[in-house]
């Protein structure tokens, strides 16, 4: 026994001494920072960084082969410590987080009763799982088991869908690998910005329809829970102008609302958007919008309208340097100079824009493309890509003789722009506006406020055919506008000095339906009628002033145009010049604000992919919905009938009293924000739809 102890002690001492000597004798100088860096790492030896063990990772960091944020498990805290050791800026490396994209769970109906192994991958082998929905969560929690960090939980008695604890998630991607349905998605904020709706995604009908692809059920769910800042941030993932959109959007999403299928009114989605965004700004809630590390690329945006601002916002978030060049004194484009104060107060729009500029977007106002600068000077100024989002500021002709000579005939764009600039905008007592779109409605209601006594709306079809928002037409009725439908103005009547005194118009009858499905108006011969007017406003459409492409010998002359619009790829928004992109009204027929915002994000994606040298084309699974005609949804997601709906009252739009002084004579905002109480009630009407399942009011199964 004693010998054994002695031997062990002897051998131990001998080894210790020998190793000690060897450590001295074979000493190799090693960067002391390696040991320091290793102390900052998680020490899990997990291999998540791609190196064999933490010491190899530390050596790679010190050698400059790996970024300071290489350690996935340690996360930003470890990155900051390592950066301190290395004397480097940590940089806000993009955080990978996991997200559950399915809200199905127990409510999703099942095809058969599964009794096999409690594992999603095993369950998915049998007819792709028991759920009727082919892309839905199976609920056996393979992702929860795969997560090494306890960041996932699933409550079989609750909703039975995985819930991510973003505090614990390190973005290792194990859950995504374990999920046979691709529900768990581990992405950086940039990857989420670049993601376009796909037919394989789990999208509610409203979310498919929204031109900006906002995650509507998610933000309404946040409102339900009282997390207004989270709701706002959810909107900001897709739409950087929520205050403005919340006021003026004609909400195509609501037309697709599943509640409307069940003999009920749709959820007032847009009012909820306005409510939560207003709440965030009114209560000055701190909002942190993640911005990717700098890429070093610079992008020039010509035109600070909605699509330009949207593109600037998303490009900045993707890490590019962005500078907006605007020809007017203020940013906002048509929604600043076209939409009147009573619909969208300038102060509100400024708040939206300031939030975008706060991310570090540069602005230069009062410079016009083609006059003060052009493509050559932008490229010479070090810009790697240019986005043309110059809008549509020219008015279309009504084809009435002498329309640009007669005094008193004003294009609506100029009329509204004067108002927006705060210039004197004199108007007579009797005003006629031709057109049936939102611009015509704006001109009508502005005229009322400027003191016109009789305001007429002239339109060649019937009121129901007008493309303007229904609420706008209603508001015109409330404010005393008279509608003269089925008429075609043919002639201006003037006095001796060329001032307008009236117009002559022909009455129309409706003929055969045309390409848009509406019946074509045909003038009736001999039905001439005279309408005495002091002013006549043209609001029958706008087009883009792209005359700069005619200048020979300039780079910009290589751009293709079609009826004034700059031609670009509808997906990537790239034009004939590879580094020039186009989006918004100038890229096609002028459209909605929300469509311009969506186009801005697509353009940002195109520019980002172009700059980073990635594949620009959309995946073949891209979902393309025609929001205006309600076509192209994922098959089987638009129902004819729906079960389990109880009829509930839709929140009504609070507005200024019709006929009141403020309503008729000032530019005070007409539509008001919902109260918190009614917003919560309205949010509870949301069925939180997913692809096919939803939360019914009364359980149907």
């Amino acid at each position, binding site marked *: 026994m004693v*010998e*054994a102890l002695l*031997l*062990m002690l002897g*051998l*131990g001492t001998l*080894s210790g001494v*020998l*190793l000690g000597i*060897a*450590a001295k*004798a*074979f*000493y*190799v100088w090693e960067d002391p920072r390696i040991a320091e860096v290793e102390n900052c790492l998680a020490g899990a030896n997990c291999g998540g960084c*791609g190196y*064999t*063990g933490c*010491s*190899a990772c530390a050596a790679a960091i010190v050698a400059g082969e790996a970024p300071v944020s290489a350690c996935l498990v340690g996360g930003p805290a470890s990155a900051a410590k390592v950066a301190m050791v290395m004397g480097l800026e940590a940089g806000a490396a993009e955080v990978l987080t996991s997200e559950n994209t399915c809200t199905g769970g127990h409510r999703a109906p099942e095809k058969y009763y599964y009794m096999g*192994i409690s*594992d999603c*991958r*095993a369950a*998915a*082998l049998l007819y792709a799982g028991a759920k009727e929905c082919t892309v839905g969560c199976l609920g056996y929690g393979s992702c929860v088991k795969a997560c090494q960090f306890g960041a996932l939980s699933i409550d079989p008695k609750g909703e039975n869908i995985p819930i991510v604890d973003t505090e614990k998630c390190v973005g290792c*991607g194990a859950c*995504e*690998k374990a999920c*046979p349905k691709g529900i768990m998605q*581990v992405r950086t904020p940039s990857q989420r910005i670049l993601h376009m709706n796909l037919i394989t995604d789990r999208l509610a009908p409203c979310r498919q329809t929204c031109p900006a692809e906002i995650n509507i059920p998610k933000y309404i769910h946040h409102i339900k829970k009282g997390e207004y800042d989270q709701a706002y941030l959810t909107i900001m993932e897709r739409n950087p102008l929520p205050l403005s959109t919340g006021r003026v959007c004609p909400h195509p999403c609501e037309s697709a609302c599943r509640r409307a299928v069940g003999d009920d009114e749709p959820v007032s989605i847009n009012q909820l958007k306005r409510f939560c965004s207003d709440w965030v700004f009114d209560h000055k809630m701190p909002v942190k919008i993640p911005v990717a590390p700098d890429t070093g690329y610079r992008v020039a945006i010509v035109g600070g309208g909605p699509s330009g601002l949207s593109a600037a916002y998303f490009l900045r978030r993707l890490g590019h340097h962005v500078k907006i060049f605007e020809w007017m004194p203020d940013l906002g484009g048509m929604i600043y100079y076209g939409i009147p104060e009573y619909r969208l107060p300038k102060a509100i729009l400024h708040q939206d824009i300031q939030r975008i500029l706060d991310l570090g977007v540069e602005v230069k106002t009062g410079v016009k493309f083609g006059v003060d600068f052009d493509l050559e000077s932008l490229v010479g100024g070090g810009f790697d890509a240019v986005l043309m989002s110059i809008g549509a500021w020219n008015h279309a002709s009504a084809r009435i003789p002498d329309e640009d000579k007669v005094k008193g005939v004003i294009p609506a764009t100029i009329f509204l722009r004067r108002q927006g600039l705060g210039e004197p905008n004199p108007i007579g007592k009797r005003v006629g506006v031709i057109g049936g779109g939102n611009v015509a409605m704006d001109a009508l209601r502005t005229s009322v406020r400027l003191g016109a006594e009789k305001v007429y709306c002239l339109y060649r079809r019937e009121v129901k055919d007008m493309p303007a928002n229904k609420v706008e037409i209603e508001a015109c009725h409330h404010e005393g506008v008279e509608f003269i439908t089925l008429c075609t103005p043919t002639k201006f009547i003037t006095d001796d000095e060329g001032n307008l005194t009236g117009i002559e118009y022909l009455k129309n009858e409706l003929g055969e339906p045309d390409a848009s499905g509406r019946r074509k108006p045909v003038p009736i011969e001999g039905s001439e009628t005279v309408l005495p007017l002091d002013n006549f406003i043209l609001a029958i459409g706008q087009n883009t002033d792209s005359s700069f492409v005619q200048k020979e010998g300039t780079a910009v002359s290589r751009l293709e145009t079609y009826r004034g619009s700059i031609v670009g790829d509808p997906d990537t928004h790239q034009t004939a010049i590879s580094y020039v992109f186009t989006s918004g009204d100038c890229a096609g027929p002028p459209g909605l604000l929300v469509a311009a915002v969506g186009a801005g994000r697509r353009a940002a994606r195109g520019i980002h992919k172009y700059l980073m040298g990635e594949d620009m084309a959309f995946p073949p699974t891209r979902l393309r919905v025609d929001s205006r005609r309600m076509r192209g949804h994922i098959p089987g997601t638009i129902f004819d009938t729906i079960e389990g709906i109880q009829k509930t009252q839709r929140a009504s739009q609070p507005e200024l009293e019709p006929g009141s002084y403020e309503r008729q004579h000032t530019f005070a905002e007409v539509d008001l924000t919902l109260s918190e109480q009614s917003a919560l009630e309205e949010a509870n009407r949301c069925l939180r739809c997913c692809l096919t399942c939803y939360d019914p009011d009364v359980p149907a199964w």
Partner: protein
Amino acid sequence: MTHYILLAISAILVNNILLIQYLGNCPFLGTSKRMDTATGMAMAVVFVLTMAGIVTWILEYVFLKPFGLEYIRTIVFILIIAALVQFVELFLKKSIPALYAGLGIFLPLITTNCAVLGVCLLNIQEEYSFLEALVSSVAYPIGFGLALILFAGLRERVLVGRVTARRKTDLTLVEKRLRERYTIGRVPGPLQDVAIGLVMAGFMSLAFLGFKGMI
């Protein structure tokens, strides 16, 4: 001479340490996903085991046997192998940095590898002479390396796990081409990774049983 050749063949094929004696299974599964790590591991085992076999044999016949201390053989061997590996690591780092870098993390990892300890104990159990112990200490790890490299070659060709889009970008172009060309087939979800690895190890073990009649 024939005796030593037979001993070597027996150690490499017939009594393969991994597939017949089932020692050292953790590195067998852990480092066989990629060929380069498998090669590194095989080299490290050959290197360490040769050293350990010699040192433990000397220790046994110089200290343990004369003093009747065979009963603490295992614990003494563990101590000696651990110290030896540390020493070798220090030595290599200074003198042969290229070899040190090649062996990488595997050198310290096999400090307590059961294959290493197993062979050292076998040498004593079989009462090998010094020369026999030397041959066996070289031949067994060669068998280990052979099995490991064969296994890694197989595992590389079976798609281990679903290749997600993010993972795909991690692969080099050569790896991508290799995967496209040599991938045998997709493995069903529940069998992926270690599960199919164990099944394959079982088949390989059956195949190696075929060497039984050689000697």
